[in-house]
């Protein structure tokens, strides 16, 4: 009987096993550059979130007597323009702040929409197979053979400019105007560009998700769950979806960068969001015509594009390393 007391009881003495999330976080934190980039992006997001509060001037205040002011110069009224003024005498720093709201907002918002579409369609195609998969996969194949930028340009050139004819419900436009800090009239254009970008962005996510689901579906735990009587919906929501999600996180960060670049490129070419709504891309586009006289003008909006783009990519890289158990950091 003495022996039995010596045997430890059923209570485990060790601490609870480390959760998957905390392992990933711990591995991610070792990636110094990615952590730095998170900080950088965080500052940019904060600045854009509080843009209307911290902006020193009204966004569209014209002052034709004080246009093309160089950075850190003061106008006639003695007010300091940190980044100078543009061709219409609008404060460049103010417009840059509002532009970051629109550019970063578009990048996140439209990627969210496209990711949701892609993930749902990928889940359906991979899990159910059959004719659902056939339709979705064939569509993907056809879309993949189209030159994306050319098609995007056509669609944007058609729909942008006619967005006034499309009856968006007012609660949608008011939400958009709140999210992007633009007026209700500009909200339609911003929403239109967001929707078009989302419409073109879902294919990569969908293909990736379908592949993941196809491999996850074959696992034994799916069979056991099914044997226990789990419904298709429960299988999808509790087992297939969470287990195929990790690669989607990396895909999402890279897609955010893709959307950011796509929106900037469109606006730069004059096809996307146009003046008076500022975005980094269209500020750069307008600045290009004046760059010979005022070289600082293109420099100021292109720096945030550069920083945001590289930062997001490094974060994606760090996440990929952190999520991949085979990688040693």
């Amino acid at each position, binding site marked *: 009987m003495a022996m039995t007391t010596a045997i430890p009881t059923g209570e485990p003495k060790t601490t609870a096993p480390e959760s998957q999330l905390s392992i990933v976080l711990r591995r991610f934190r070792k990636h110094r550059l990615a952590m730095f980039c998170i900080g950088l992006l965080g500052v940019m997001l904060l600045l854009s979130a509080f843009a209307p509060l911290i902006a020193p001037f009204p966004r569209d205040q014209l002052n034709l007597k004080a246009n093309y002011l160089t950075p850190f110069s003061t106008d006639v009224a003695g007010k300091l323009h940190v980044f100078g003024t543009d061709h219409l005498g609008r404060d460049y720093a103010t417009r840059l702040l509002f532009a970051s709201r629109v550019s970063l907002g578009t990048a996140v918002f439209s990627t969210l929409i496209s990711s949701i579409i892609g993930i749902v369609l990928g889940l359906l195609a991979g899990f159910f197979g059959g004719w659902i998969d056939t339709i979705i996969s064939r569509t993907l194949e056809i879309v993949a053979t*189209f*030159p994306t*930028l*050319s098609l995007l340009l*056509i669609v944007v050139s058609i729909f942008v400019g006619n967005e006034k004819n499309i009856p968006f419900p007012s609660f949608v436009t008011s939400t958009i105007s709140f999210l992007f800090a633009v007026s209700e009239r500009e909200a339609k254009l911003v929403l239109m560009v967001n929707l078009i970008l989302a419409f073109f962005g879902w294919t990569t996510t969908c293909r990736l998700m379908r592949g993941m689901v196809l491999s996850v579906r074959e696992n034994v735990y799916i069979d056991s769950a099914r044997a226990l009587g789990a419904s298709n919906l429960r299988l999808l929501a509790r087992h297939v979806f969470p287990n195929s999600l990790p690669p989607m996180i990396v895909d999402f960060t890279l897609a955010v960068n893709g959307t950011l670049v796509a929106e900037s490129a469109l606006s730069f070419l004059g096809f996307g969001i146009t003046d008076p709504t500022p975005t980094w891309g269209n500020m750069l586009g307008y600045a290009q015509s004046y760059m010979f006289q005022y070289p600082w003008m293109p420099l100021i909006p292109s720096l945030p594009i*550069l920083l945001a783009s*590289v930062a997001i990519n490094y974060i994606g890289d760090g996440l990929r390393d952190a999520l991949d158990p085979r990688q040693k950091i």
Partner: protein
Amino acid sequence: MAAFLVRRLLQMLLVTIVAAICSYTLLYISPGGPIDTLLAERQNSGANRVSQDDIQRVIERFELDLYMPVRFSRWLLGWPKAPIFGSLGSDWVVGCTTPGKVRLRYPDGRVEIVEEGCENTVTLAELEGRKVSNGVIFGDFGESQVMLRGRPVTDLIGSRLPYTLYLMGASIVLALLIGVPIGVYSAVKQYSRFDYTMTTITFIGSSLPSFVFGIFAILIFSVLAKQAGLPYLPSGDAVGVRNYVIPLLGEIQAGSFFDRFLRVLMPCGVLTFINLAGWSRFVRSSMLEVLSQDYVRTARAKGVSERMVILKHALRNSLIPFVTLLAGVLASLFGGALIIETVFNWPGLGRLYIDALGRNDYNVANALLLINVVLLLVGILITDILYTVVDPRIRLG
């Protein structure tokens, strides 16, 4: 193989027609169509008001009076040009010049005029004598509607094609010549200082938007260099209009070989860098994978020299996945670089596409889009065939 080719060619035809339908309908359902453009143009220029005749001319030029399927089929196939088989269907209605107006009188006294039915119809017989393309499918893209009014689209494309070929060809060759060795060397010397530097540079290069690169290049090599009194590069166009003086190099004759050379340097350099960044990353990762294979170890164990191991055993196998890039290369060789050509004002096909879209020249835009789609499809087909050549284990089925 034959069965594969036939199936793929049929598929390609299907995708091309789908693309044609998409682009055609997209362009023609746009509410800001040709008439709106005409009105806006006249209003902005302050010229004489638009008369009914002007509108009628535009309607005729764009065939807006024909029904959509008829218009599309005339554009795609060049058919129907006239009544079929002599007289059959000569009185079939294919369009409507003036829509009929119906007056609706409501019980509460309101009167509304609604467009309904058709007053003046167009019949097949009336199509005879109208100008029409021989069908896009057969290589006749019709006439340019705005940019070079009345000239065939192929003229416009032909005049821009050499510039695109010359810019894209040079940058693709350069990127291959520089990018592949960089990728190979980075992989062989993994985690060396060279590898780290190149990984960082190519990472930034492949994640940055190309127009930012273009703007930076112009800022540094033309604007700032010019202001500092250093030799600078001209910032745009393929050929100069008037002579200019560059410090240290003296006066440059506009249109001379040297002028053209200076002007292609920047766009070509930027494009090369962008391609190089992506390709060398690609080569590096596939080379790393091959270097860890058993047959490479076997070759080393047999005493094959390191040089031969890398060049003969590893490199050749690591280039197999590289073939997949060819599909995109072919399309971009002829399609041009939309953004870089615009930034550097390069008169190539990419810029032509952007201009055509901006100025509502639908025939030009449609033609370019279709050419691009076809080239992409041909590129994919060539890639698939090349795969079987470089890797005999793969069979087409």
